[in-house]
Structures are given as C-alpha cells and as structure tokens.
C-alpha cells in the first residue's frame, strides 16, 4: 500500500489526476452550449432592456453547422485519449480521490489508465467514423423537416457518446460500489439510447427497447447483489469489503451477493446465457455503436468483474474462494462455445460479429478464471503471483487489441450500412472489386479475430492461452524439467479452459474466413456494383485500426510492458 497519494476533491493534484474525465466533462458542457449559441437576447425582467446573452435565437453560422457537435465530441474524447497516453510517460502515480470522511472514491493507477485508454480509443474512433454514418445536410441547403431534425439530433448523439465515455471511465476508477454502479448506469443508459438512436428504423428502436429491458433486469439483479454485499459488510468500500470477505467470505449472504453481481456484469460482457439481447442490439444499432458495445462496453464489464471477483472476493484471501471459480469456468466454456456455434450459421455479418464477441467474452472469462485459480490448490504454490499477472496482462492486451480489429470490422460494415445495408452476408459480396482497401482491411480484421500470426489477434490469444497454461502447470515446470512423469490429472483443471479456447478458435476460423470468401470470390448483390459511399473519416478510422492491428501484432513489446505495469498495479497484495 505504498506510494498512495490521496487527493481530496478539488484539492491539490485533483486536476492532473482526473484530467481525462474533466476534459470529458468540459466537452459535455461545450457540446450542450455551443450549438445553442446565437443571437439570443435576455430581457431583464420588468424592463424592456434586452441584453444579448448569446443563447438561443438565431444561431450563428459557425454554431449552426450540423458537423460541429461531432467535431467537438471527437476532439474531446480524442484529447482525453491523448492525455491518458501522456500520463503514462512518467509512470502513473497511484492516486486515490478520497471523500472528506477519508473513504476512497476513485483510484487512478496504471490499471485504470489502461482501461481509460481502451474506452477513449474505441469511442474516439467510433465518434470519428460516425461523421459518415450520421448523414447531415450542409448549412443553407434546403432542408426537409426530417433532415432538419436529423441535423438537430447530431448534438444528442455525441452528448451520449461523451456521457458513455464518462460513465465507463468512472467504472474503471471506482473504489466504491456506489460510484461503480453510478458509472455503470451512466454508461449503460447512454448505450441504450445510442442503440435505439435510429428511431426511423424499426429494427433500431426494437433493438434499443429490448436491450434496455433486458439490461435493466440485469442491472437490477446486479444492484440487488451489491446491496446484499452492503448489507453483509456494512460498507461500500472495495477494500473494506475485501477485508471482510477474507474473514467471513464463506457465509451465504456474500455468496448470493456475488452470484447476483455475476449476473449483472455477465450481461455487460455478454456472457451466455445473459447475452441474448446482444445480437439483437448489435444488429439493430448502427455499426460504430455496435463496435463500441463489443469493445469498450465489454471492457467495462470486465473491469467490474475484475473488481468484484479479484478484489472483493479475492482468491488469495479465502480458502473457499473456489465457489465462484467453478461457476466462472463453466460460464466461460458455455459462453465461448455458444458464441462460436451460433456464429457458425449466422448469415448476418453484424450478428456474426456479435456472436464472435460473445465467444471472446468466453475467452476473457476463462482468463479471469485462471487468475482466480492461482493459489487455491495446494499444488500451486511456487510463484503463482507471477502467473496471475501474466494472465491479467494478456487479458488487458486482448481487450486493447480487440478495439483495433473488432471495431475496425464494424466500421467496415458501417460503410456498407450507409450504402443501404450491411446485414446480409451477401452485402459484402465483391467488396474486393468495389473497394480493395476495405476488403483487405476487413480480411485482416477477420484473420486477426481468428488469431492468425503475425496479427494482434494472434498475439493476444496466444498470450491468454499461454498464461492459462502457465497457471495450470503452476510450479510443475521443475518437475517437467527433471523429466518426471506427469499425467493430465496432475494439471489444474483450468488447463482444460485453454484447450477449450484452442478448439473454439479452430471453430471460429470457419466463419471468419467465410467473410473473406464472400468479399473476394463472390459477385456483388444486384444494384450494389458502383462505388461505395464516400467519406474519409470512416476510412481514416479503419486505416488506424488496420495499422494498430498490424503494429500490435509484430511490435507488441511496448504495449505489453504497459499492460504488465497495469496488471501489477491492479492488486497490491500480489506483487
């Protein structure tokens, strides 16, 4: 618990510690205010004097530009992203934001910074790409009512993007169940609306509605679990909960509480069987939003799970901690298998990607299970902390690179969507001829998802599998070196999770490569032979994803280093 800076709200160091969030907040206010700047005058009550106060009235030419909100949002989230990167430069100081009573509310460390990076990165790219997805007619054009509404809605959309970012980063920072839940709901509500944002299309509204209903139920269950934990420990503080859990974690109440929380976050990461709304939501939402759901939102769920399972119900604190371990292991296997099987036959590329994201959730849960498995068995003494950090590093790396290729794939679909539809496999037909760049990018995203070397997806999957195997083998490396006979029964059962991952990866190759076949070998759909809709922003975002996919595959050292620091800072009892 060394080197902990405590900062009171608005105290010294507050601004530097919460810089990205404060930028977001400022951006949020700007986004609300700026588009409303105009020649509005305020009449001082009781007089005829009108003081120009710039709000309302006839909008200025600049502020009436429908593109303005998008640029503000992109610059806001983008600068938060840059600030987060910059904060890594001189090492992230561990800083806690404490209330006046001394309770920790937020914690800034390398771990939270990495997740902020993931959230902001994904949202920046998505917001940027949305400039082409949400069509606007320029200033001065003769507008129909619908178009006018559409222009006015721009601000709403990007406000939701920013609140989403804000909520997610609060989840990453939260040290208190209450703050955690606030952040979670802020982000969730933003995404519910974002999914339903295209209210003209029936699918969008329906998907948003379903996502909202099912999500509310899951949140409710999760909240119920959190309240049980509070009931049991009498505190909302994560560290207090962890201490209490170490003392009396095997009681029924915390068990039930953790079970409920698992359901709540299980929905967020779309683990089976809580994933059902996800494919509907992904296919109903516009593609960049679906990309955010599949990357940033999922990462948020993972943060929540990590906090509850590895800090509160920390494996090292209790000998009976295995209760959730088996449960989570089963959940992970069911999730990855379910996701891959469902994706196999799916003919809607967006649903296919949704199921693939379910499968990826399974891989992540397997990684968390492995971390949880590290020193519970007598056979796994040795230096297991190291193994757990390896797995956590791999998990974070996986979440990071997922932004590159999963979001990238959704962005490619978004181009097709602007053309009129990306919900059929055949809409990808002949893409290689129509726009080779998109086809090649999509193909690389697909094989990266499948885990083909030397792409980022291979690296991350390999690291996760290696980490799990390392945990499973524990301190048996010595036994291996001396050549004594070891059977599978000597290996911890999490080894089977690694095997399940390998088998599932093999299955997944089928549907990922099918996309490539369609793009390169099949003819375009009727009437879709011409050039695709223009738009440099989305292509720029795709290019960025593509470069990241390639770069993080071959030159992952630096990023892995960051992830490792983050993993070490996650739980100070480990190091």
């Amino acid at each position, binding site marked *: 618990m060394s080197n902990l800076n405590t900062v009171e709200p608005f105290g010294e160091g507050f601004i530097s510690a919460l810089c990205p969030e404060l930028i977001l907040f400022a951006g949020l206010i700007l986004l609300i205010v700026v588009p409303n700047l105009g020649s509005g005058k305020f009449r001082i009550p009781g007089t005829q004097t009108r003081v120009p106060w710039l709000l309302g009235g006839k909008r200025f030419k600049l502020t009436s530009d429908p593109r303005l909100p998008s640029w503000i949002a992109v610059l806001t989230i983008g600068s938060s992203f840059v600030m987060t990167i910059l904060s890594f430069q001189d090492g992230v100081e561990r800083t806690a934001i404490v209330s006046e009573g001394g309770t920790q509310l937020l914690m800034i460390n390398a771990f939270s910074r990495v997740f902020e990076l993931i959230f902001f990165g994904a949202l920046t790219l998505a917001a940027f790409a949305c400039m082409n997805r949400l069509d606007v007619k320029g200033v001065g054009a003769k507008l129909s009512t619908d178009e006018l509404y559409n222009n006015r809605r721009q601000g709403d959309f990007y406000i939701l993007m920013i609140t989403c970012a804000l909520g997610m980063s609060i989840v990453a920072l939260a040290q208190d169940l209450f703050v955690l839940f606030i952040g979670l709901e802020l982000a969730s509500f933003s995404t519910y609306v974002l999914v339903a944002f295209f209210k003209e299309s029936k699918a969008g509204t329906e998907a948003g509605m379903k996502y909202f209903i099912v999500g509310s139920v899951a949140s409710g269950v999760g909240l119920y679990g959190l309240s049980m934990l509070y009931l049991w420990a009498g505190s909302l503080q994560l560290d207090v909960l962890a201490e209490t859990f170490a003392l009396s974690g095997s009681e029924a109440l915390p068990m039930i509480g953790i079970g409920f929380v698992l359901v709540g976050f299980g929905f967020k990461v779309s683990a089976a069987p809580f994933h059902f709304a996800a494919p509907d939501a992904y296919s109903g939402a516009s593609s960049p939003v679906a990309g955010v759901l599949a990357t940033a939102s999922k990462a948020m769920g993972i943060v929540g799970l990590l906090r509850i399972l590895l800090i509160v119900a920390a494996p090292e604190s209790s000998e009976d901690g*295995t209760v959730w371990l*088996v449960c989570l292991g089963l959940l992970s296997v069911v999730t990855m298998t379910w996701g891959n099987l469902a994706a196999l036959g799916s003919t809607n590329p967006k649903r296919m990607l949704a199921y693939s994201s379910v499968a990826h959730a399974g891989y992540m849960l397997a990684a968390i299970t492995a971390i949880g498995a590290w020193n519970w068995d007598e056979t796994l003494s040795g230096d297991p902390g190291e193994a757990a950090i390896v797995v956590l590093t791999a998990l974070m790396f996986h979440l990071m690179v997922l932004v590159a290729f999963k979001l990238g794939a959704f962005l490619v679909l978004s181009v097709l969507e602007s053309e009129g539809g990306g919900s059929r496999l055949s809409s990808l037909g002949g893409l290689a001829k129509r726009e080779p760049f998109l086809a090649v990018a999509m193909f690389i995203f697909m094989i990266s998802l499948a885990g083909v070397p030397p792409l980022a997806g291979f690296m991350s999957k390999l690291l996760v599998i290696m980490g799990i195997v390392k945990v499973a083998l524990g301190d048996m490396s010595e036994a291996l070196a001396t050549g004594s006979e070891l059977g599978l029964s000597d290996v911890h059962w999490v080894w089977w999770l690694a095997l399940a991952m390998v088998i599932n990866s093999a299955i997944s190759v089928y549907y990922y490569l099918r996309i490539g076949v369609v793009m390169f070998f099949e003819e375009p759909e009727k009437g879709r032979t011409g050039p695709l809709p223009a738009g440099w922003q989305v292509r720029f975002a795709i290019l960025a994803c593509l470069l990241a996919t390639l770069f993080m595959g071959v030159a992952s050292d630096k990023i892995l280093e960051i992830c490792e620091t983050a993993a070490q800072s996650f739980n100070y009892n480990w190091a």
Partner: protein
Amino acid sequence: MASSSDVILDSDMVQYAPLIILLPMLAFPVILFLGRVFNKNPFWKNTLKEGGLIALPVMAASLIISLLLINDHIGGFAGIKDSMNLLWVNTAVWDGGALEPVTLGFGIYIDHVTVMLLFVASFLCLLINIFSVGYMNTDPINDNRNHRFYAEFVLFCSGMLGMVLADSFLWLFIFWEIMGLCSYLLIGFYYERPSAAYAAKKAFLTTRIGDVFLVIGLVMMWDIFGSLDYDVIFNAVEDKEFMAGVSSSTLQWALGMMFIGAVGKSAQFPLHVWLPDAMEGPTPVSALIHAATMVNAGLYLVARMFPFFGAEALSGDLVDLAFIIALIGGITAVMAAAIAFVQNDLKKVLAYSTMSQLAYIFTGLGCAMYLANTLDWHNDSESHYIVVVAFGAALFHLFNHAMAKGMLFMASGSVIHEVHHAHHHLHHHDDHVEGEHDDHHDDDFDAQSMENMGGLASKMPLTATAMLVGSASIMGLPLIGGFWSKEGIIANAWRVAQDDPRFLLPAMCVLIGAGMTGFYMSRMWLKTFAGKPNNEVAAHVGPTNTWIKIPLFTLTFVTLSAIIFAGMGFTHWAPDSEYAFMSEKGLVEGIVYEMEHAFANSDSFFFILTYVAIAIGAVLGPGIAMSLYGGNLAEGEKAKPWMKPVIRLNAWVYSRFNFNNSSIAESGLTRALEQRLYIDYYYDMAMLKIVAAFSKKSAEADSAVIDGTIKSIERGSQSLSSIVRSLTTGSARDYILMISVGTLAIFFFLWGVA
C-alpha cells in the same frame, strides 16, 4: 598464360561469386513484371525483345564474373578449394539429450569440377540467350509471351549456376529443384498444346522419381556425417578414424540413392523416357535443358561423389556402385543410339544422341570411380596418373558434348525455323491477315521432320557447317572435339575390364556405341543437308538471322579447338597440383603429348583399341550411313568448299555401296525401336494399372473418409448452430427467462460447491 606454382589461398573473386546466381535470380521477377506491365508495348517488343535484352546483359555479367573467378582459381590452381560461407540460419538439432547447434549456410565451393561446369553453364546460357533472341522473337506464335520464356530462362540459369556453385548437397538439391521447376515450365511453354503439356508433366514426374531417391540419399548422408556441407563430408571421408565407424555398405546405399537422382536428371535408363518428349519445348529450351545444362546436373552430382571413391578408408568398398554407374551408362549408350537410328524428327535424333553421350560420360565416371576405388592412387604415382586421366576424360567429354550438343540443337533450331518460314511463305502467303496468328501445327506439315529437308547445305552454309562440326565431335572423328575424350572413355572402360571382367559389358557397349553414333549422326546430317531437297519447301529455305549465327559460329570455333583444350590439360582435369591445368607442360608440348598418346600409344593393347574405335566410329558407322542416305546436291547448288569433300565422298559411297535396307526397315526390331523399345508403353501400362488404380482408391477414400468426416462435422455444427440460434427468439421476455435460468444455474453451482 604462364603456369604458376604459387598457391593463392584467397581469391578476391569468390566474394563476387554469389552475384553469378543472384543476378539472373533478380532478373526473373523484373522480366516477368515488366513483361506483364508492358506487354505489347512497341519499345518492349522491338527494342528490348520482350525481355531478351534484359536477360542478355545479366547472363553476360554472370559469364564475366564466372570467367574472372575461374581465372583466379586456375591462376592458383593447386587443388585448392575456395570456399566461402555466407551465414544463413543458425539452428539446432535435438540429439536425444542436448541441442546440437547446426548452421545452415549458403556458401560458394570452388574446385576443379565446379570450374568446369561453371564455364560450361554460364557460357552456354549466354549463347543460348543470344540464340533465343533470334529464334523466339521472330516466331509469330510466341507473340507477347516471350517475357515468360525469358523470365523462366533466367531463373533456370540461376538454378543451374547455383547448383554448381553451392557448397553443400542441401543447396545443390534446392537449386536442382529450381531447375526441375523451370524445366517443367519451359517444356510446357506451349501449354495450350496437349502434347507439350503432357511432355512437361512427364519430364517433371519422371525426374521427381529420381529426386525422391536423391532426398533419401541425402538424409542417409546427413545421418552418417551429420552435415551436408562438402567441406565437412569430404574431410570426414579422409578421416580414417571417423570412417572406421561408418558402415561402407550404408554409405554405398546412400550414394546409390543419390545416383538414382542423377539417373533421373540426366535421363539415363530406366528414367530416360522424359527426354525425347521434352523436345516439345521451344528449341532454345532443348538446347538449354537437354544439352548444355540440366542433364549435366546429374553428371555433376556423380562427379561430386568422387572423393568418396577416392578415399583411402573406403578403398575397394564402393566397387559395386562404380560398376552400376558404368553399366547404366553402357546400357543407355547402346539403347539410345539404337533408337536414334530410326527417328525422323531432327530434334528427337539429337535427344537420343544426348542420352547416349551422357551415358558415355556415366560410363567414364563409373570407370574412373572404379579405378580410384581400387588403385592405391594416393601413393603410387602411376596409379595416380591413371585415375586422373580417367576422371579427366569423363569431365572433358562432358565439356565437349555440352559444346557440340548445344551447337547442334541451336543449328537444328535454325533449320527448323527456316523450314517453317519457307513453308509459311509458300502456303500462307496469300491469305495471311495482319494480326492473325497462325499456328505451326495447324496442318500436317512437320517442320522438324527430316523427311521435309534435304540438300540444305548450300542454302544454310553456316548452319550446315556447325552441324557438320558438331556431328563430327559427337561421332569422335579424329582431331575434332569429342574424339579426345571419347577415346579416353573407351580406353578406360577396357582398362577396367581387364581388371574386373564385369566391366566387359559396359566396355563393349561403349565401343559398339561409337559405331552406332557414327551411323545415326551421319544419317542425320546427310538426310538434312546432303542429297536433293525432299520437297518444295526444302528448296525454298533461306539463310538464318544474325542472332542465330553468332552462337553457331562461336561454338563451331570452340568445338574445333578441342585439341587446344586437350593440350591445356583438360584430359587430366583433376583435383591435384601435380596434373594441374597448364602447370605440367606448355601448350605445344601438351598438344604433342596428347597426339602421341592418342595415336601412338606405347601399350599395344590400347594402340589397337584406339584404331579399332576409330575404324568403327569414324569409318564403319558413317560409311553405312553414307551408303543409305544423301547423295549429291541438286544441280546448280554449291556447297562451301569445306563441305564439298564430305558431300562428294557421300555421293561416291552412295552410288557405289547403296543397298536395299527395306527388309531391315520392316523388321520387328525396327518397329520396336520406333516404339522406343516399348518402354514408354509399359510404363504407361504400369501407371494405369497400379498407380492410377491406387490413386482412384485413394481419391475415393479421401472423399468418403476425410471429406466425409469434415462435411459431416460441418453439417453437424451448422445444425447445432441453428438450434443454438433458435433460442434467440427476438422476444425480450424469453431473454429475461434465460437470465433467470442462468441466475438459478449460478446459484445451483455456488450451492453445490459451498
């Protein structure tokens, strides 16, 4: 050139040696790419000759570097091997307990054998390149696709030169396979023609059979020596302590396996069937693959094995293999020559002649191997001389044959080219439409058949001369080209036969083969160039173009100069300082010595043998041919003065000794020969009955078991997938139900564990 006794250990040129391989290898993608991009571009087509003039400087550069390298090497020739290692991969082999570091590097290895092959390959590649520009680019059927030819051509040359320069059997094999691939591509250059496609496939598959054995041999070698580097292996072979632990019969098997690879590549019995069919490729390809370079690869491989036979530790252990090499050579020499008797296709005669002559070299190598293996040549200077001369004769024959055969193929190409043009001129003159391709093979006219030639000596003087000199060299007419080496091979075969009666068979074969060679080569020349034109087409043939003339002229000169090469010491081309190139005696003295040795041998047995061989090969064989074919030229046609005596002699013999050979021509043997002794037929039968049947069964098993399993897995997963997806009903109520189910399941598990 002054003889030098100084030993130059370091050759500056060695560091440039990789360029010999790299330049053509880099030219390959360049020509291919530019050819694709600039296809039909007039500059590309007319000025760059569709890549021909890119290949030309590259091959010239390769030749120049080769010559400098050879010069360097010969300057310090003392049996010193120059080698250089360019590190490639460091890896390790798990040796049961510990990891053993292994370096797989590419290096350059230069000794006397390398030097010989390097010159032959780079020199002929350049000449054939020149020839190709004259041949390929003037043929309308090749329009706009010659870049493919030149690209494959340079890659092929790169493969050949790489194989010669490589410093390990591994790299030899790699380049060997590059050549194999290129030969497949080049033979199938006219892939739209079924016969060419078939021939390419046949060549590829037949040599592949040999290659499989070669790989087995290499693996055995690795097993024995732990390395495939020449340096390592040849040093190990000389190391008596090491060799004491090596089973000589295993080694003999390994070498035997490698020899089978050589048999395939050099088209020896029983893997010879691909070579005649491979004449489907364009003529420069025939010259390149079948005369100058690729078929020599097998010989090179066998020549590389010399250190094994020469090793003291293995003395007398490898006799059987030496006999097999000589025997395969002997059989092929006679068989191919016999088939050549009845061929009417100009190029096919040359193809069989190639097989036959390569067989001579194999016999020569086999005998040299036998001598090296049995004689105590390391210590006894007389034995040493015998071994060196035997080995030198074989290598010298390789040189002579490559030069002469390259020339013959190019000359035949020139003939075919002009006959075809004359035919085209006569028959398509009126209705030829610009831009419309006409195929050679669209009618029954066969421009390669000697039946359509005759009396061309006056129309194509340079070609006829080149053909005459080349034929004389192959026949072994005294003083010309192959004579010097062929006599040596025959003499050595008999020398070995005196020692080991088993060798009587190959010895008889090469002696009889000499007479047969005399017959079929004379027949070919006479049918083509002497006598009267067989038809209207042959009467209208004109002289050929300059690009074709240059290599013909050069090679005629080289072939005629064989005596000078012999005098320079080519006949005892050996890894020894004692008999080093030019170091023993001066040029004139050398020539005199060779003459004396050839015509006035002090040993009466060899004295008689020499004259018997000359009588058979240079008098009897050609004499019979003259009595059957040819005759005077047509009225008013004048041959060049140096061809006049030949034609006059031919006319005299023809008028004096002509006899009716129809009974022989209709005999069963002739028919068998026309059918290539039915060997191809039986191979095809065997393929159909055994291999094809097996393949069919495999295919069935494949589709039923492997595909079936995969298909059923796929079907199963798809149906499972639809079941799983059917749970996603689209109704939020159901989703909440599933969440409840999941929650209950979680509690069930938590309960169960706790």
